[in-house]
């Protein structure tokens, strides 16, 4: 890749108790980049949801798998952050599982919806080494909550 190195790269074990430390790091990084409290809270939630999904659906709660994150300041003039979140799980098709309709009241089915809603760019890729890469971008001056429309409403179909 010809893009500059990420400012911060993290490899974290797939354990829920470690999520808080990653959130704290991202929150502080976003603050230094110039995100207001609301926007950085949204970014942190989106990334937390992605890690939560990997732990639950990707790794089925196995505590010794790995999640990789890279944090990058977006090049000016666009102020913002790109976060890439990678796993080594069996791939799933995010088009197939675009979250539930928000009009149903039931537990769950909210994660993918939140990730799309809270970010300016949100793209799933298959890694050539196996597993998935979720690329998220969030801009400092994102006035609305996210651009990406909720896709088709077919919850709970994918891997594991």
């Amino acid at each position, binding site marked *: 890749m010809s893009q500059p190195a990420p400012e911060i790269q993290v490899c974290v074990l797939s*354990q*829920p*108790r470690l*999520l*808080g430390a990653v*959130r704290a790091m991202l929150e502080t990084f976003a603050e230094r980049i110039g995100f207001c409290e*609301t926007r950085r*809270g*949204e970014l*942190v*939630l989106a990334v*937390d*949801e992605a890690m*939560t999904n990997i*732990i*639950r659906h990707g790794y089925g*709660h196995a*505590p010794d798998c790995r999640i990789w994150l890279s944090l990058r300041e977006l090049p000016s003039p666009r102020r913002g952050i790109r976060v890439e979140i990678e796993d080594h799980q069996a791939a799933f098709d995010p088009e197939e599982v675009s979250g539930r309709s*928000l*009009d149903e*009241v*039931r*537990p*769950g089915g*909210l*994660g993918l*919806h*939140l990730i799309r*809603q*809270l970010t300016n760019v949100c793209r799933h890729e298959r890694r050539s080494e196996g597993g998935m890469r979720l690329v998220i971008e969030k801009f400092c001056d994102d006035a609305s*909550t996210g651009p990406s429309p909720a896709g088709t409403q077919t919850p709970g179909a994918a891997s594991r």
Partner: protein
Amino acid sequence: MTSVDAMTIVEEPRGDALVLRPIGDVDLSRSPHMRERLTKAIASPAKRLIVDLSKVPYMDSSGVATLVEALQHCRKAGKKLVLAALQPKVRSIFEIAKLTQVFDVVDKVDGAGA
């Protein structure tokens, strides 16, 4: 240390209501513990459960799912579930999920008739 953390949840009976006050972030590591405590509270004689979220600065969808589940169980048991004193970040996840209409949401525990 296990992978799932216990969290402090203060319980306080108020007349026929029970106030539950979780303290700290409610994420995937803590929502299972909150779920357990809610299940117990629903099985108690209390007619209303008031979840005081004033000490919860952060909640993710696993916490929201736990509360939605508790709401369903309360309805089945003929009980009321009230959410009180949501901090702004927590309020906004309920708003995005269009759940502020579904729950009884009040500004203060005292406003929950407790």
